[in-house]
């Protein structure tokens, strides 16, 4: 299994990369970690004429808090996400997810930018970014724009990212006291895509009731899914068992899984129901100061 040949460019700046993408008019692909792309090229399902390797562009790998946001550079390896003290201390949802992506070796090379921009409904980070209300910084010939994660995904492997654009940064609202999140992935084995996976981010107000809720679903539809009805329902609730069950029902309704070796549609919807309830409970416990 060997890929077809292609032109290879290693630009030193984002502008240079955009220029190269523009020249190739949709026939070039950005190479970040390549942990998904190179596999598809070996299968010859993907045959780009050129690869634009952005790994030589300095300053695209970082995790830091700035102007009331957590900002993550596109080239940050997913393993770094899991090792970051900042993420582990203040963004447990991301720490959970970082431990679930593919396998530990793949995480060493796969990037946050690649994971969120690939458009694979099986990737774990898109649902997390939807739950967290993240924004993606997208740079193109006409400059930079910010796209909310919840509006980024259009269909399997189809996103709003244009062929001449690069996703350079993920921006997440800064963690505030009373916020907590969790990610649960039901998988057949390490390295598998989820049978169903659920990301839940909750924020508690002074009264102790939920004043902010985001629920994202992985691999139970053509794209990652933002369970808006479930999220809205929890907002303003205290988070009783009944509340969490209802959120699970609404999330299951929002899912649109395909049948595959992991199971039929009704099973996957049921797993969304169960894992939404369980994950919301974990997120709530964390929001209330538990681990």
């Amino acid at each position, binding site marked *: *299994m*060997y*890929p*077809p*040949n*292609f*032109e*290879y460019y*290693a630009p030193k700046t984002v502008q240079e990369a955009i220029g190269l993408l523009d020249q190739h008019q949709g026939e070039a692909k950005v*190479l970040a970690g*390549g*942990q998904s792309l*190179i*596999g598809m*090229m*070996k299968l010859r399902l993907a045959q780009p*004429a*050129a*690869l634009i*390797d952005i*790994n030589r562009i300095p300053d695209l790998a970082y995790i830091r808090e700035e102007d009331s946001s957590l900002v993550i550079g596109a080239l940050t390896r997913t*393993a770094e996400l899991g090792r970051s003290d900042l993420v582990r201390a203040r963004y447990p949802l991301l720490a959970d997810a970082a431990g679930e992506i*593919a*396998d*530990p*070796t*793949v995480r*060493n*090379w796969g990037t946050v930018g690649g994971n969120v921009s690939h458009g694979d409904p099986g990737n774990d980070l898109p649902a997390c970014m939807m739950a967290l209300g993240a924004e993606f910084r997208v740079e193109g010939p006409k400059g930079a724009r910010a796209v909310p994660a919840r509006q980024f995904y259009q269909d399997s492997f189809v996103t709003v990212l244009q062929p001449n654009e690069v996703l350079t940064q993920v921006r997440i609202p800064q963690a505030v006291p009373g916020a907590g999140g969790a990610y649960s992935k039901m998988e057949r084995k*390490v*390295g598998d895509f989820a049978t169903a996976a659920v990301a839940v981010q909750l924020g508690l107000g002074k009264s102790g009731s939920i004043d902010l809720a985001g629920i994202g679903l992985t691999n139970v539809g053509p794209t990652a899914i933002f369970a808006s009805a479930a999220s809205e329902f929890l907002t303003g609730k205290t988070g009783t068992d009944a509340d969490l069950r209802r959120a699970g029902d609404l999330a299951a309704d929002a899912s649109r899984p395909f049948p595959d070796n992991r199971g039929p549609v009704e099973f996957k919807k049921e797993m969304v129901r169960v894992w939404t309830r369980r994950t919301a409970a974990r997120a709530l416990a964390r929001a209330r100061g538990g681990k």
Partner: protein
Amino acid sequence: MAIDAADTPRTPGPVTTRTIQVTVNGVTHSSTVQNRMLLVSYLRERLRLTGTHIGCDTAHCGACTVLVDGVPVKSCNLLAVQVDGRQVQTVEGLASGGKLHPIQEAFHEEHGLQCGYCTPGMMMTSVALLARNPNPTEDEIRRGISGNLCRCTGYVNIVKAVQHAAAKTQTSVPGGH
């Protein structure tokens, strides 16, 4: 040889080769490779370092695991051009001056290998695991090597070998209990 023939770009028009500088097991090589050449092909066929194996083509089995700048990666899922200017370590680089690396001794002493095919990748992953976490628990070891498949050992003695290597590389007792 076949591999030399492969060096000259065959497809006319676009440039499909590149010259890279890679330091493998401490030796720096300057090589012209096809852009599409996988790192594992470069190591096995160009440098004849055949200790790195191919097992699945889809980045699941980890038989091709090597260290790039000290980090374990699956070399069948990486292009040679991606490691231009980087440091690569393979199983052949573990022993130094005829002295086996503690992980090699440990795999031997704990019977952590049978057919030997997954062993180089398994050892490279373990070396990096212990570098980060010198005293891992059994569950940390099992999670840490979960990107490497072994069909022979049921992992029991591989886990023991990693614990044994941990004990060798420090005076304290190994973790996992």
